[in-house]
């Protein structure tokens, strides 16, 4: 494998997927966000968003808390420490790769 591409081989594929990457990027700058906010910001359908969130939760990258604000259901999502570390590592690795390949 060319040395330029070697950096990409061990990239975190779970985060590399565009929708999940967008979710991680949003969650990296906030404390927590609800389902509606994430849906509006990513433009994903409810089903798609649920599926991506489930994958990230399964990996331990996000924590989902189901709660109520008054009588309104609220699904709060936040990046876990592991998720934040994985996102930072992905970002750094990808930046390095882009610098190498120009």
């Amino acid at each position, binding site marked *: 494998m060319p040395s330029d591409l070697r950096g990409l081989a061990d990239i975190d594929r779970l985060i590399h997927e565009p929708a999940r990457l967008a979710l991680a990027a949003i969650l990296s700058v*906030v404390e927590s*966000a609800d389902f*509606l906010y994430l849906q*509006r*910001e990513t433009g994903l359908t*409810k089903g798609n968003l649920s599926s991506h*969130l489930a994958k990230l939760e399964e990996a331990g990258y996000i924590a989902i808390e189901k709660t109520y*604000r008054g009588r309104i259901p*609220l699904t709060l999502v936040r990046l876990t420490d592991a998720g934040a570390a994985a996102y930072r590592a992905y*970002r750094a690795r990808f930046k390095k790769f882009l610098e190498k390949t120009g």
Partner: protein
Amino acid sequence: MVDIEKIEKRTVQSFYSDGLAEIAIGLIFLLLGGYFFAQAVVPEGSALGSALSVLFVLVIVSSGFLVSRILRFLKRRITYPRTGYVAFKKKELSPKRRVATMIIGGIIGGSLAALYGLSPSLKTLFPALNGILFAIAVLLFANKVGLIRFYILAAVSAVIGFAVTAAGVGDTKGISLYWGLFGAAVIISGLASLAIYLRKSARADRENPDAV
């Protein structure tokens, strides 16, 4: 390809998309203008004048507290049902940055005091200096957030400062006029943003539970 930096910036910008933060901050500025106006009209050395000097910190702290409560209430009623709930990280200044901020503040304050000591007539320039210094602060913030209307507000701050100085209103009255006018400008900017936000964002149907 996903532009990570753009997404991160857009997320930060989303906090200001409803204009509520500007309306709240504008109210603090108006209050500040009112405070300086009271200082300008109350005779120096009077009991009320002394009380006003002591009350300055209290006015700032209590108005900040009150406005943050109002902002949270409005966000809950207006923003969250439309574009969803989001809580931003509270960024604590690192000790290095805190020291740097204090040093810069000290240098600016010291320079102004030294200038005033050299020539008391410079007092008439206070509104303009105030306008420029605040314009720089708003400019730095605009650069961080990346919203054009904050660049415009930075320019407005400088223009108001110079206009008030040129009008020769006086130092304390001038400062009060600067904060009053700039506060009004910030509120107008916030109201315009709120109108655009309300037109663009319909209330979401929250009756159906989120599906995860």
